[in-house]
Structures are given as structure tokens and as C-alpha cells.
């Protein structure tokens, strides 16, 4: 295992892989630090550049974006009190007060170093655990896969901030999009109504780019009249003198905090589509509960920054584990990576590590190397990045849109994909406006084909539907899916009851 990892690291250290990894990390840090530009958006922007690259170079660039973006968000968190990306949300709670107390440098670098150590600890788990997880997944038959996908969708629908019903409806819309086109067994056209445009179904990436990019950009444009003077605040930011050794000592004198935040991030990352924001908030909450000084949280306490940042970078390794062991995207960023793998003809899943060792260990190596690169980028380019972060939406939005159009067009050099992008851009924005969560839709979109295939395979093997419940793993997974729905309903009812009690409390 470790000799494969060593050769993977040596491989990625070649210029043809190191340069895309460096560029991806740089773009990730900058994109992550731009308020309103998520890591998903950044990875979508970089996607068209990866089509022409070697698969490992493309995936290295995306891994760089993921790692860089998870850290970049903390810059605006600390300087403006606005999370650059949702995964840094909990860093704001203590990063901003610490910066306001005259220690912006300490706040940012505590976050950067915690990201590095949390990410590297996550990398260790990524290398050690992904293989055994894939081995478990190899034992799965179509019944287990079907049930696993149902569990993933139930969890995502249940954990969305909107209502459970909206989450489930959003999943159903995602699944419906995948059944448009020809059926996977007999190639019978479904819901095409004789149209050649949708005869082959909707290509996944233009749908994903359309939904996410338009929802994001248009929501930002909506708020344009209220946009503040963030840029000028950032451009005037000055750091105090501080010691990197002291910052690292602050992290390592509480090893349990670092380890626990990493474990929380990893677990949240492994669970499909929950995302970095949940891991950041959950690790912050845990850190506060275990802290000897919980009263200092929210007032610029270093423990809050360490927990949030170590967790959101470890979350990346958890997401990579899920995509590499099960072929299920941990979040929207890995969904784009999964799409990019498909373009290069790579099938992610339990056989990925054994069939593509060079590529899989290359991804591990890229993930590990992205951390020192991110550190170097932050060290050297921080003043420049702060200026780039102040770029206006009026300049950013048109360029992002051109890159989205290119991302859809370059997929197969046809305008069809660009039209799909526009259609689903409208759908994505409409869904955001009616408060429909996008994550369940994306998961439905990604897993739809696989769910249908496994359902058909299971029924063609043995048409007894009870097998889904009586096979131990499959039954267990379905039970977990049902429990997650029940838990979501219970949480919703409890929240409703609390709201009613607060309303009646005069």
C-alpha cells in the first residue's frame, strides 16, 4: 500500500501533474475566499480546462480546488465576518472576533495550519480506510447497491435545511431527469415525445453546471443592490506580527481537539452529500462541549477556529473515500469529479482502486501534496489573494458564465449541451426561489441510472421483492434509510413544537 502511495507521490511530483495541482489549489484558495463563490462553483469553472488533460492531471486539479477551497473560505471569514465558502461558516464565529481584536494574522494562520494538519490526518485515513471500505462494497449484490443508494438519498433528503418533503420531492425530480431518454435495457425511448434533442437524455454535467452555477450567480445578482464595500475593507487589511511556531503550538498542545475535529469531518464527509458546512458547525459544537473554557467561544477563541478548519479539510478526505469506495459522491464537488471521471471513461466504485491503482494512488498523492502547496500559496500570495478577493460581481459573473458555457460546450463540442445548461439554469434558479434544496436533486441525478440498473438486475436475478428486506446488509441499509426519515420527521416536529412554544411565550 505505502509503496504504491510513494510511487503515486513521485508520479504526481512530475510537472505535468504538479502544475495542474498547483493551479487548482491556487484557484481553489481564491475561489473559496470569494464570498458567494462556493467550492462547487470553483470546481465547475475549472472543469472545462480538465477535459483536454490526462485523467490524473484533471483530477489532481480538481482535488487541488477542493483542498484550496476548503481553506480559502477562512480568509473572508476572519477579515469580513462573511464565510467565503459555506464549509468555513463556523470559522466566522471566532475568526472574525479574533481579527477584530487586532489579530487577523493569527486568526487566518491558525485556520490555515489547522486545515493542513486536519487534512493530512484525514489523508492518512483516506489511504488506510478506502481499500477496506471498497472490499466491503465488493461483497454487495444489486440488492445491497439499490438499498445503499436509497439510504444515501433518504439521508440527504432528511438532512437538508428545508423540509423533508421538499428534500424527497427534489430527489424525485433528480430521478425523473435520469429516466428521460432511452431505457438502459431495451433502449425504448421514454418521455422524449419524438424529440431528437432529448432522445439521448440530458447529459449530466451541463445539468449540474446549469443548476448550480445559475442558482448561485443569479442569487448573487438579486442581492447586487445591497452589496457592501467588502472589497475596500479587504484591500486595506494589514496583518500584525505573529509567530508560526506559536500558532502550531496552540494547535498541538490540544491534540484531542485536532483529532476529534478530524474524526467529525471524516465521518460527515463519508456520509453522502451532507457537506463541509455541517462538519464545520458540528466540530465547532463538539469543541465547545468538550472545552474547559466554553465561555470564550464566539469571542475569538483559538479552539473554535482549529475545530472548524481541521474538520472541513478532513471532510474532503471523507468525501473522496465515498466516491472511491462506493462510487457515490460525498457532495456536489465530488459529483463534478465523478462526472469528469465518466468523461475520461473511468468507472468509480469498489473496483476502482484494484483496477486503476495508478490513478487512485495518484488521487491520494494529489490530496496529500495539495496541503503543502496550499500552505505555500497562502504564505506567498496572501496579500495578492486579498486584493483578488475584492473583485466585483459585475466582472466576475460574466467570466464565470463564459466558463460555464465552455464547460457545457467542450463536453462534446455541440451547442445541444449549452441549451441544456440554459434550461437547467432556469430550473435551478426556480428551485432556489421556491426553497427546494439542490443537493438531493443532484444525488438523485447521479444515482438515478444506477438505482434503476440495480433494481432491474436484482429482479432479473430473482423476482422475489422480499430479498431487498431479507438479505442482511440490504435489509439493514433499508432499515437505516427508514430510520433516517423517521429521525428527520421527529426533528421537524420537535422544531415545530419549540417554535410554537416560543410564539406563545409572551
Amino acid at each position, binding site marked *: 500500500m505505502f509503496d504504491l502511495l510513494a510511487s503515486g507521490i513521485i508520479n504526481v511530483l512530475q510537472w505535468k501533474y504538479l502544475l495542474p495541482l498547483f493551479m487548482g489549489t491556487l484557484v481553489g484558495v481564491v475561489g473559496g475566499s470569494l464570498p458567494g463563490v462556493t467550492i462547487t462553483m470553483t470546481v465547475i469553472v475549472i472543469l472545462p480546462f480538465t477535459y483536454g488533460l490526462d485523467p490524473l492531471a484533471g483530477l489532481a486539479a480538481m482535488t487541488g480546488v477542493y483542498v484550496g477551497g476548503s481553506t480559502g473560505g477562512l480568509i473572508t471569514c476572519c477579515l469580513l465576518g462573511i464565510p467565503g465558502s459555506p464549509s468555513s461558516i463556523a470559522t466566522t464565529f471566532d475568526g472574525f472576533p479574533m481579527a477584530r481584536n487586532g489579530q487577523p494574522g493569527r486568526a487566518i494562520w491558525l485556520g490555515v495550519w489547522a486545515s493542513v494538519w486536519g487534512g493530512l490526518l484525514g489523508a492518512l485515513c483516506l489511504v488506510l480506510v478506502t481499500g477496506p471500505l471498497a472490499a466491503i462494497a465488493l461483497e454487495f449484490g444489486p440488492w445491497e447497491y439499490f438499498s445503499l443508494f436509497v439510504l444515501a438519498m433518504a439521508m440527504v433528503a432528511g438532512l437538508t435545511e428545508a423540509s423533508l418533503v421538499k428534500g424527497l*420531492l427534489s430527489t424525485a425530480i433528480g430521478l425523473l431527469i435520469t429516466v428521460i431518454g432511452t431505457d438502459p*435495457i431495451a433502449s425504448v425511448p421514454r418521455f422524449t415525445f419524438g424529440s431528437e434533442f432529448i432522445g439521448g437524455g440530458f447529459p449530466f454535467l451541463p445539468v449540474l453546471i446549469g443548476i448550480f452555477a445559475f442558482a448561485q450567480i443569479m442569487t448573487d445578482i438579486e442581492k447586487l443592490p445591497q452589496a457592501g464595500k467588502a472589497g475596500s475593507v479587504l484591500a486595506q487589511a494589514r496583518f500584525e506580527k505573529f509567530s508560526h511556531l506559536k500558532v502550531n503550538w496552540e494547535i498541538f498542545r490540544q491534540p484531542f481537539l485536532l483529532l476529534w475535529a478530524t474524526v467529525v469531518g471524516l465521518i460527515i464527509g463519508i456520509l453522502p452529500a451532507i457537506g463541509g458546512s455541517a462538519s464545520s458547525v458540528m466540530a465547532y459544537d463538539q469543541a465547545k462541549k468538550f472545552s474547559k473554557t466554553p465561555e470564550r467561544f464566539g469571542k475569538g477563541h483559538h479552539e473554535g477556529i482549529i475545530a472548524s478548519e481541521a474538520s472541513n479539510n478532513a471532510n474532503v478526505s471523507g468525501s473522496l473515500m465515498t466516491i472511491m469506495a462506493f462510487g457515490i459522491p460525498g457532495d456536489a464537488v465530488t459529483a463534478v469529479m465523478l462526472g469528469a471521471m465518466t468523461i475520461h471513461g473511468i468507472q468509480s466504485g469498489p473496483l476502482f482502486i484494484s483496477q486503476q491503482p495508478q490513478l487512485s494512488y495518484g488521487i491520494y498523492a494529489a490530496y496529500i501534496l495539495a496541503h503543502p502547496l496550499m500552505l505555500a500559496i497562502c504564505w506567498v500570495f496572501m496579500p495578492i489573494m486579498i486584493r483578488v478577493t475584492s473583485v*466585483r460581481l459585475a466582472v466576475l*459573473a*460574466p467570466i464565470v458564465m463564459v466558463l460555464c458555457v465552455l464547460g457545457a460546450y467542450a463536453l462534446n463540442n455541440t451547442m445541444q449541451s449549452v441549451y441544456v*445548461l440554459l434550461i437547467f439554469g432556469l430550473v435551478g434558479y426556480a428551485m432556489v426561489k421556491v426553497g427546494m434544496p439542490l443537493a438531493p436533486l443532484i444525488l438523485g441525478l447521479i444515482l438515478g441510472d444506477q*438505482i434503476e440498473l440495480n433494481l432491474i438486475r436484482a429482479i432479473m436475478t430473482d423476482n422475489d421483492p422480499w430479498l431487498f428486506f431479507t438479505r442482511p446488509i440490504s435489509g439493514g441499509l433499508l432499515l437505516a434509510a427508514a430510520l433516517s426519515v423517521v429521525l428527520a420527521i421527529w426533528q421537524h416536529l420537535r422544531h415545530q413544537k419549540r417554535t410554537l412554544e416560543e410564539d406563545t411565550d409572551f
Partner: protein
Amino acid sequence: MRLGRDGIAGLVCLAISLALLPHAFGLPRLPIVPIGPGFYPAIVLSFMALMSAVLVLQDLLAQRRQAPPRQAAPAEPAPAPTRAYGLVAASFVTIAVYIGLLPLLGFRLATVLFVGVFQMLLERPRSLTTLLRQAAVAVAAAAVTYLVFNDYLAVLLPRGSWTGW
């Protein structure tokens, strides 16, 4: 009774699923496969119809709960945050026009126009300097993306049927 945002979304989804369900049931069954091509879409559409109906029902119940008592004095409406929906609509139109013009004008010309117009739409140029900066950004964005994609990444970008360029 008035429907809220959720209710309308639920009704739209319910209408779509109910309209497509007969089509799913009408898909031909094949003798070699125990389940036909309509089996899975029918499950998805039924589930979607069920969730849509629940969403409509939830919305109706919520509206009823929130309905103000008849004799109560009208409450002072909270100031709503300003949302530039007109700008969003104009942005969608600009993007749609750009996509429409791509095969007619070609990537380079259409992109220069799009980036320039979209910038002006989002930030009205109040001085010649701003206008020149926006023009420079438009030309640079088109040139850099063209060079990177067309020349370096070998993506055959659209040529204009009107311009041949």
C-alpha cells in the same frame, strides 16, 4: 384559500407527474425482461406525485394556521429586503441571447459582446474609465478563453455562420 410558494411548487410538480404517469404505464413491455421500461419511471412518478400532494397539503394547512383573525388590526408589514428581480430577468435574457448568438457570430465576437454588455448591465459605466475597463475585460476574457481552449486544449469553439469567424 390562497396557496403559498410551496403549494404552487407542489401543484406544478403534481401536474407534471400526473401528466407523465399515463405515458409511463403505456410504455411497451418486453417478453425477455420481467419488468418493462415503464416500471421504474412509474415508481419515480408515483413517488413524486405523492410528495407533491403532501407539499400542497402542508402548505394549505400552514396557510390556514397563519391566517390572521378577522377582527385583528392589520399588522405593519416588515420591510422586505430589496431583490433585483428585474436584473435577474435581464441577466437570463442576456445569457440566452449570448447562447443564441454563439453559432451565428462565433465564440470570439459573441463573447466580447456578452462580457461587455453583461458587465454594463450589472454595473452601469458612469465614467469613460469604467467603460474602457469593461471593454478591456471583455476583450481580454474572450481572447484568453479562446487561446486556452481553442489553441491549448484543442476544443473546436463555435465559428459564426454569419461572420465565418
